[in-house]
């Protein structure tokens, strides 16, 4: 009897060992980056993301029908229009404020070229990650010009960067992810630093030259130093300045974009290379 039980249990252990070896192998291959395992991910994304898109559309249609015809007839459209208008105006205000500050700052500079964003691609968010890491899935991929490290943003602020791309879908790592870091500068003083995600709703200031003049309400913009996000896009606002821990004060930054309610995002596939800003003293008459 005992022999029969032992014999029948064997396949279970074989199956378990095979499964564990396969998964451990996948993990270690990624850790050592010997073999590119991204094709597995691309294959699964290409197979499952269309289903997510269909489910998302069906869900959105049901919701839209409710919003438009049952709950609030006509009000929804007006609200959507006003939201769009508001987003556009906010972006314009930020850009103009930036332009004024920039103009004042670079009057004496020679040969400065403004960094611009060319043809941003509008993508729809179709799902959030099913494994509780801070990622979203969007319905644009390599076929639309997206690739790893493509910057993703909304008019309110930056959202994140593409980390995996299949032909028609991409996984975007949000800036609040614990593996995310963004090069930033303070809008008022142009002091540069780095903010990092911590997996929570806020960002942590990881580095800055001098934190003595930082205060609540200060705005951080992208510095362009990370070569992912173009310069001058809103990142977040300081919500708390805590006591010094190590070299820096504990500073929490609330992202400008509402990362919990993303529906459409813009992807930057092309941007002008930032021209190196010359030394401000250069070209001025020597006393």
């Amino acid at each position: 009897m005992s022999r029969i039980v032992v014999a029948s249990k064997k396949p279970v252990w074989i199956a378990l060992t095979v499964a564990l070896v396969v998964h451990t192998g996948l993990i270690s291959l990624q850790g050592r980056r010997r073999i590119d395992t991204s094709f597995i991910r691309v294959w699964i994304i290409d197979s499952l993301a269309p289903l997510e898109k269909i489910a998302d559309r069906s869900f959105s249609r049901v919701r839209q029908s409710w919003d438009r015809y049952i709950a609030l007839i006509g009000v929804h459209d007006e609200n959507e229009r006003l939201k769009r208008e508001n987003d556009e105006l906010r972006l314009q205000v930020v850009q103009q404020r930036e332009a004024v500050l920039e103009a004042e700052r670079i009057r004496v500079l020679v040969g400065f070229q403004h960094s611009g964003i060319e043809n941003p691609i509008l993508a729809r968010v179709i799902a959030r990650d099913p494994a509780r890491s801070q990622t979203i899935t969007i319905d644009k991929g390599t076929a639309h010009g997206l690739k790893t490290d493509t910057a993703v943003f909304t008019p309110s602020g930056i959202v994140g960067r593409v980390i995996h791309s299949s032909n028609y879908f991409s996984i975007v790592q949000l800036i609040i992810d614990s593996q995310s870091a963004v090069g930033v500068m303070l809008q008022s003083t142009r002091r540069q630093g780095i903010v990092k995600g911590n997996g929570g709703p806020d960002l942590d200031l990881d580095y800055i030259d001098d934190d003595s003049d930082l205060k609540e309400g200060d705005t951080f913009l992208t510095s362009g130093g990370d070569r992912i996000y173009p310069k001058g896009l809103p990142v977040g606002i300081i919500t708390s300045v805590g006591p010094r821990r190590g070299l820096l004060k504990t500073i929490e930054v609330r992202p400008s974009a509402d990362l919990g309610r993303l529906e459409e995002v813009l992807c930057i596939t092309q941007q002008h290379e930032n021209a190196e800003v010359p030394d401000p003293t250069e070209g001025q008459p020597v006393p």
Partner: protein
Amino acid sequence: MRRITTIRIIGRFATALIAVVVMQGILSFKFKVFGYFDLPLICCVYYGFTLSNPIASIIIGSALGLMQDSLSGAVLGANGLSKTLIAFFAATAGGKFAVDQVVTRVFALFLFSLGDDLLVTILALMVGSGSGPTYSGAMSTWLLSATFNTLFGLVLFGYHDRWSNATT
């Protein structure tokens, strides 16, 4: 005829597993609270307990985990490994303990949920691409998630009991 039945059963299982992963992605995008649920984990425990077939459970756990990893920023294999182990333990427990008791189910679901979070985070940190919560509220997130998973799992098991009582 027997082969057709087998293919049909496998097809149904595959559809159910894909639906679970897709629903998890859609629901956590549409409703923030679903970010705390881990439907694939509940599915692993559910199939582990109800099928009491370790080999089938291992395959289900592996497939669910791999799909979950692919559709997220998580390291490929982390959820796969974790869900495989959970499905195996659930199936083994299903054959040895009285898993039709509410207390056993609560205990198992809560522990499996915490274990899954812990293992995935450790694996991700070992590879150096940890994307799980590393902020101070990580433990509270795990506890909240374990509570939600336990409650949802109990509802699911309740329906299963009702359905199996009705058919027998």
